[in-house]
């Protein structure tokens, strides 16, 4: 072998490799029919239960129906929770099966891998949100003042946040048991503090601060904006930006946890 002309260093980000990875993740999903069915049906079914719970509860005159308020918020919470779980397990599998180590010896960059996951589960979340929004607004008479497309958009951004935090959390889990338990750790405090259970203004000062720095707060706020204003508001776009920014930050941190060299 003579002097070798080395090919260029692989790019930090390759749309082609990101796309190939997203396609691979979706193909894995497609082989798992039950998971696909649960992804599509479960949020609608749970929303139906909420609808029934509040069906006969009277609301004060002038107040929005409780289901309109809570149900709409859940459209952002479901994709966040589901994608967090699915992704953290999927990534843990990559780590334990040896495929992650193998991928890191190929030209695929760490960011390609993580964005591939984000893209694949973001697409899955878009389909999920379309189904859920359609059923909620027709079957359960969910009233949304703003455009439904924005609800779907927010749901997808929430899902991507779930994916990013799931990828990050999987780095700290050695087993599926641990990975699953990261869900309540990451999700429940955000859910308690997002203003759904108790209006944020009524929270103690330090809890409000905690609420201010948790991304789900902004996801819920964005949906509330769409629920009450016929058009997209500036506040809503800021909220969406905060959620998307947090997702990117978490993806960057997750990339830092992928070590090529291990002992």
């Amino acid at each position, binding site marked *: *072998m*003579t002097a070798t002309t080395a090919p260029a260093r692989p790019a930090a980000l390759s749309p*082609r490799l990101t796309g*190939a990875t997203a396609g*691979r993740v979706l193909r894995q999903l497609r*082989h798992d029919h039950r998971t696909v069915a649960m992804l599509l049906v479960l949020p609608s079914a749970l929303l139906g239960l909420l609808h029934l719970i509040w069906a006969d509860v009277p609301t004060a005159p002038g107040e929005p129906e409780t289901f309109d308020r809570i149900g709409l918020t859940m459209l952002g919470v479901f994709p966040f929770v589901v994608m967090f779980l699915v992704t953290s397990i999927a990534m843990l599998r990559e780590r334990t099966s040896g495929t992650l180590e*193998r991928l890191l*010896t190929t*030209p695929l960059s760490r960011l390609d891998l993580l964005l591939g996951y984000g893209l694949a589960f973001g697409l899955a979340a878009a389909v999920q949100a379309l189904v859920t929004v359609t059923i909620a607004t027709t079957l359960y008479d969910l009233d949304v003042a703003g455009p439904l497309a924005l609800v779907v958009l927010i749901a997808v951004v929430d899902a991507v946040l779930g994916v990013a935090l799931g990828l990050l959390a999987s780095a700290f889990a050695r087993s599926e048991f641990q990975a699953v338990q990261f869900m309540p750790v990451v999700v429940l405090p955000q859910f308690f503090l997002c203003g759904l259970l108790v209006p944020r203004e009524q929270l103690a000062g330090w809890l409000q601060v905690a609420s201010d720095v948790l991304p789900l707060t902004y996801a819920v706020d964005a949906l509330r904006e769409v629920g009450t204003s016929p058009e997209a508001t500036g506040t809503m776009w800021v909220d969406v930006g905060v959620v998307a920014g947090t997702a990117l930050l978490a993806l960057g941190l997750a990339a830092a946890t992928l070590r090529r060299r291990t002992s």
Partner: protein
Amino acid sequence: MDAAVTVTDLVVHRGARRVLHEVGCSIPPGRVTGLLGPSGGGKSTLMRAVVGVQRVVSGTVTVLGRPAGSADLRSRVGYVTQAPSVYADLTVRENARYFAALSGRGGAAADAAIADVGLRAAAGQLVGDLSGGQRGRASLACALVAEPELLVLDEPTVGLDPVLRVELWDHFHALAAAGTTLVVSSHVMDEAGRCDRLLLLREGRLLSDSTPAELRTRTGTDDLEEAFLSLVRATGVGGSGPGHEHRSEERARSGAPRGSERVGRA
């Protein structure tokens, strides 16, 4: 001719244990080099160092003229781990196509790699539904598909029937004839004779770096298994129980004579 891989004074620790002791060797290009020795001897660790996923304490590993693990080596080096690392929830073809895409190749390359490992009939099956041997071959196909200049294969023939094993070895030699460098580990000595060059690794030390013929001449036996055993006896590094290596290492550090241990065991 430059070596495809040059390892110099490589020291690797796993936890508190030293698993490679200043190993040095060079691997010729366009040849099949066998990495042999009992399991736990450091074969996999040495391979991981060559593909650049092993954290090393000291020493250097140069692969195709570049430091091991360099980013631009990733498209030139293929690695197959001992445990099949493919997606169980994808078909053989989907796995091969994904790894083909990662190296900029298409479906035809994927199908060719599947045929090379004799899995054409199972291409549409989920990897999770295959036998252990078939899974290993699916994993191998995913490395072959990238047509790397250096192929590092950790025990690729484990669990295969004799016919398939011969076919795979023939394929390895065909690849080598076409210019690919192969490093193949095995703990079965009957595969040693199929290699162009042999590295014998035991308890983290390189016992021998030679051709099978040289090894036979040196040890005066035609049986490579026997040759390996006589090398072990000659070097006197030894012990059979787990943890022995660690003990002898501590003894070496504390200056205690090694001989005392051998006497104690005799």
